């Protein structure tokens, strides 16, 4: 019998499932499946333990078995990411027995364990819906309403989360919107109720509700096949008693289709990698690295500073998606000994190559660079973004299946906002995403501009506009508390950015 555990952050093991007992076999094949959610942005550690169950316990329920009464045959551990990045989604591991540490050069053989993972089909399914309304009421005084729809889901805790929004159709009381695409996994299931609200667009941002309706995807599918409409209603009474007034207005489902789309894991399985790159801010505003109040201060106790924290948090997740684990690493805004200020120097000090080995390599190069350069300024992003874009272009020329992720860690305000925009607009057409982590207490207004999902698409000096948003920004203010969730939210969007790039170019995850 095998037992699956997840290893929690504090190192404790939590039992997830037990397999069935395979009788009298030295090469057992278990069929028990366990369904768990894959989170790209966290390291999901798994531990597998294999036991020999004595004959006397064979007619007991596996859940009731006391593991300490059984013979322990060995254990194996891995991360979920290690399994899903294998092209056949199967990971083969050596079993080791408790006290033998992995440091022992020749551990006696305890057999091998193969773990297989597959993605459940519901997470790949998307629904395309085309909605229209009839006989909407006028909310504008002198003209017809300018309606648009917002689709929201209710979470288990009762919170209403908007997931999709249509375009605004001007002056129309029988509007028909462009198709919207919903992911079933995002919604939870086809039975989950969705709230569809129709608003009248107001340029001041105070959109007025025309009517709403609550339907699950299943209901919407039925509306479509029956070709009937459903009446919208509007909450009328204010106060404790919520009453709904049913309106004449109706919602129709013009088309409904389900489609299985390629997922992030499909691209990984077909050999795509995420390649991690890092760029570190060495401007003087960080403070003298020898003083404890500096953002670059290396604590002798070993506690990581803000920069080290960010590298570790992002790196520990991304390293599993990069097979050679050779990471380009740069610094910017510093003056090497006897040189002018450089806005993109190799962190390893080399004149010929920018790569370092592993996350540990980045950490070592970072510390040695601190000893070798004097902090200066100004803060320019253009050169490092251009260097990263260059590597991404080169990889395309070599026909490699790579998607690049540049992590920029900075403490301050950039001086080359327009140059940075120019570089980003060009880079948006490449297999590249940029994560910016802001450390320290500066005002990060510009970073919010670069992170285009809060505003307009970036525009270059020549009038070129970014085809997609490739920047994610997050301030890492409270490092002391090890605010990991901040970094996780930064990483969480990467899979969808990769998918956006692939779908744009109609690249399929075939070999």
């Amino acid at each position, binding site marked *: 019998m095998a037992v699956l555990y997840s290893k929690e952050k504090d190192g404790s093991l939590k039992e997830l499932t037990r397999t069935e007992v395979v009788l009298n076999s030295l090469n057992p094949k278990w069929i028990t499946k366990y369904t768990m959610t894959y989170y790209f942005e966290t390291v999901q550690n798994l531990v597998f333990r294999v036991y020999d169950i004595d004959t006397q316990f064979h007619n007991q329920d596996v859940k009731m078995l006391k593991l300490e009464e059984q013979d322990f045959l060995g254990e194996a551990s891995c991360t979920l990411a290690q399994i899903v990045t294998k092209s056949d989604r199967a990971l083969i591991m050596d079993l080791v027995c408790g006290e033998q540490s992995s440091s022992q050069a020749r551990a006696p053989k305890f057999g091998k364990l193969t773990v297989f993972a597959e993605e459940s089909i519901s997470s790949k399914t998307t629904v395309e819906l085309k909605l229209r309304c009839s006989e909407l009421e006028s909310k504008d005084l002198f003209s017809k309403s300018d309606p648009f729809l917002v689709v929201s889901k209710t979470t288990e805790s009762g919170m209403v989360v908007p997931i999709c929004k249509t*375009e605004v159709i001007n002056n129309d009381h029988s509007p028909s919107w462009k198709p919207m695409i919903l992911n079933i996994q995002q919604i939870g299931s086809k039975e989950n109720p969705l709230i569809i609200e129709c608003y009248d667009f107001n340029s001041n941002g105070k959109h007025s509700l025309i009517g709403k309706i609550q339907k699950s995807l299943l209901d919407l599918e039925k509306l479509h096949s029956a070709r009937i409409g459903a009446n919208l209603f509007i909450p009328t009474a204010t106060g404790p008693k919520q009453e709904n007034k049913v309106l004449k207005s109706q919602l129709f489902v013009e088309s409904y289709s389900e489609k299985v789309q390629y997922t992030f894991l499909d691209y990984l399985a077909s050999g795509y990698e995420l390649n991690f790159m890092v760029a570190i801010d060495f*401007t*003087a*505003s960080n403070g003298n690295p020898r003083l404890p109040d500096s953002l670059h201060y290396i604590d002798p106790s070993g506690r990581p500073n803000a920069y080290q924290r960010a590298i570790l948090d992002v790196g520990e997740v991304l390293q599993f998606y990069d097979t050679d684990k050779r990471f*380009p690493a740069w610094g910017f*805004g510093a*003056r*090497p*000994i006897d*040189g*002018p*200020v*450089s*806005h*993109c*120097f*190799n962190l390893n*000090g*080399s*004149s*010929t*190559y*920018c*790569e370092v080995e592993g996350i540990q390599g980045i950490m070592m190069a970072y510390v040695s660079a601190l000893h*070798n*350069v*004097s*902090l*200066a*300024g*100004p*803060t*320019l992003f*253009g*050169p490092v973004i*251009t*260097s990263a874009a*260059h*590597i991404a*272009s*080169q990889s*395309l*020329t070599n026909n490699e299946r790579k998607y690049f992720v540049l992590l920029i860690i900075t403490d*301050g*305000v950039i*001086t080359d906002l327009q*140059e940075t925009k120019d570089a980003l607009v*060009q880079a948006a*057409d*490449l297999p590249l995403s940029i994560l910016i982590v802001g450390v320290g207490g500066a005002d990060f207004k510009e970073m919010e501009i670069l992170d285009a999902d809060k505003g307009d*698409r970036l*525009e270059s000096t*020549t*009038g*070129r*506009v*970014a*085809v997609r948003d490739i920047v994610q920004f997050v301030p890492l203010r409270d490092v002391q508390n090890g605010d990991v969730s901040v970094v996780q939210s930064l990483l969480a969007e990467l899979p969808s950015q990769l998918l956006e790039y692939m779908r*744009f*170019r109609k690249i399929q995850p075939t070999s």
Partner: protein
Amino acid sequence: MKPSSSSSSSRLLEITVISGENLLDNRKQPVKKNAFVNIKAESSTCNGQTTKMDKEGGSFPMWNEKLIVALPMHARHLTMEVQCKASSGIKTVGIAKVPTSDFTGGFLPEDYLHFLSYRLRDGKGEKNGIINFSLRVKNAPPQSSQSAGCAAAYSRQWTTAPVGMRSSYNSSSGVVTGIPVYPGSLSGNITNLMVNKF
């Protein structure tokens, strides 16, 4: 493809005009219907290409139409002109000038499918919507054997910003593309200002 004299003096571009966004008529009303795109190679008027009209799309027209445009080698940009047909005649909504350097040169494969979006500007130079299209250079010259060099080889030990690199692309036209080198003057006397935030 047979290397003819014409192919060396002009680039054949396969352009898929995808869509327009937020097109306004006279800077106020959204364009109602019948928007189309005129593609012209710099200055020359003869070899223009035109998409069909989008009768329904209004101010967010969708064309998804593939056109082949010959662009003279010396041309520095391509002009995309969005027009619309109304009862009063054909009006220009906005123009985008696309620098040739945005899809040639650089470190990308010559036949890379570029997805490009540009800001449109009306006759008075005011912003008026965005045009989205994809572009591929059809008759890409064969790549020269010396490739664009190792990706990493552009920084000297603890010295200055990236050293400009030669690109093998465009070697025929003698254009050398380099990564921007930030002038050393920027660093002048910076150390004295160390207390300031940059």
